């Protein structure tokens, strides 16, 4: 799961020293899971890195692990384990109770230093400990579009012919496109379409990622009090479906394109929209596409038949 086992081990050792076996073993399991779950519930992200569970979110091909997440969990776990073991080495009550002030102070001191150090190292990390992978490892071919992928993405079937066909389908339909396609999970820019490709992608996934790269990263703008936000999400869902259906010409059966799940109404809206003629759909997309990225105009009505 990506979490460091030192703290659960130490908790188990401490409980085993002072509680009967029938209680200490299940409680060690219980407390360890509660610790993992508790860190996950905290909105202050550095706390999540103390247990290390969040490292499980790493990594897709186009991302790499931020090493601060590993340092944070190792620093916290090591020092906290020392604190717990210091308390565990106290003889049991029945023998000789000897939690001296010095021992208690040292144990608490280790725990405090562990927490401060762990939080300090993890400071600035986002919800996931990933960062973009270096661009120098990309393998690029072609011109207009120039397609750049990582070597691992070429292990299965080469995704670039499918991407090229989908790209040309969109361009023939009049959709404005950058001259390059790059595999990356960073924010889109005008110089390149940023696509996310798994190691063995299906045609459907490739078409979807290319279509989704043409809508803004936040999918739909949140304008004012957000009253029209659901409607803007619906527009984005239908726009993505249209882009998929155009990009997938000759690659996919139109019925196999699942509507985006941006809103609960997506499926019915797409179904009605899909009955329009090709020209009507195209006209709607070009009228609606400016509203996908800014709040200056109201969201377009979605026609259906």
């Amino acid at each position, binding site marked *: *799961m990506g979490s460091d086992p030192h703290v659960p081990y130490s908790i188990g050792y401490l409980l085993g020293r002072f*509680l*009967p*076996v*029938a*209680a200490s*073993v*299940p*409680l060690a*399991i*219980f407390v360890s*899971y*509660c610790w*993992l*779950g*508790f860190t*996950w*519930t905290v909105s202050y992200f550095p706390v999540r890195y103390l247990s290390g*569970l969040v490292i*499980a979110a790493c990594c897709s091909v186009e991302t790499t692990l931020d090493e601060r997440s590993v340092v944070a969990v190792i620093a916290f776990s090591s020092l906290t384990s020392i604190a717990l073991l210091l308390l565990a080495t106290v003889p049991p009550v029945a023998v000789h109770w000897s939690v001296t002030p010095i021992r208690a102070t040292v144990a608490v001191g280790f725990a405090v230093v562990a927490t401060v150090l762990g939080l300090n190292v993890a400071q600035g990390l986002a919800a996931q400990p990933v960062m973009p992978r270096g661009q120098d490892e990309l393998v690029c071919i072609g011109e207009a579009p120039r397609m750049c992928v990582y070597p691992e993405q070429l292990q299965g079937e080469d995704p670039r012919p499918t991407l090229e066909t989908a790209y040309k389908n969109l361009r023939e339909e009049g959709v404005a496109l950058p001259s390059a396609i790059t595999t990356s999970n960073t924010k889109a820019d005008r110089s390149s379409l940023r696509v996310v490709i798994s190691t063995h992608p299906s045609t459907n996934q490739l078409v979807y990622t290319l279509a989704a790269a043409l809508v803004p990263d936040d999918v739909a703008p949140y304008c004012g009090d957000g009253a029209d936000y659901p409607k803007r999400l619906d527009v984005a869902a239908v726009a993505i479906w249209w882009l998929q259906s155009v990009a997938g010409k000759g690659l996919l059966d139109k019925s196999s394109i699942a509507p985006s799940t941006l809103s609960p109404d997506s499926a019915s809206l797409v179904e009605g929209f899909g009955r329009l003629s090709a020209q009507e759909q195209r006209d709607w997309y070009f009228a609606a596409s400016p509203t996908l990225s800014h709040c200056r105009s109201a969201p377009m009505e979605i026609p259906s038949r």
Partner: protein
Amino acid sequence: MKWWIRSQHPAWVVGTVLLGTAVVIAAPGSTGLPIPSLAGPTAFAAIRPYALVAVLITVAMWASVSAGHKSAVLSTTRLLKFYVFVSPCGVLVVCGLMIGAWAIVAGELTTPLQLLFRDLIGLLGLGLILVSFTGYRYAGISSTVYVFVSAIFGRTSGGGAYDSALWAWPIADSTAFDYWIPAAALFVTGALVWLLRSRDHYSRVMINQAMDTRRE
């Protein structure tokens, strides 16, 4: 020879039941401990307080009985076996009284309390079955592991994020009768296994004692 046995610190068990029930009553409905969910529609799903409290009560009870048994290891008698079986029933009675008291005070029976009672029935039954074969120390572990395994693998992909498979009844947030069936079945099975096993064990003890007497 001692002809009775007591669990160590039974007040702690009763206290855990009372405090646990109070926590379940007081906890807001949305409270939960997120656990990775490998089977459900979401990557994480929460275990609600009633399931966590049920685990703690079960662990406290088996630890108490285990400690009591250990202190009188030579008095393996029918009374000991009877006492051990009575302990789960005692926990259920105390919890039931708390639930009844709350129903009288608040005028309604809250869903989490019903779910706590269901989980206690099932987890104590599971412990009773295991105690008969493996001894006391694994009874508390079984309930802990079963709840967490249910949370990780027991969510179903259809429907809501917190729907559960029938076998994952400890984390089912529904009071549907279906989820009571496996819990009740476990308790009945546990009680039967316990009584049958202890009767056999008691018979063996009596035969051994008779043979020892004859040898003397």
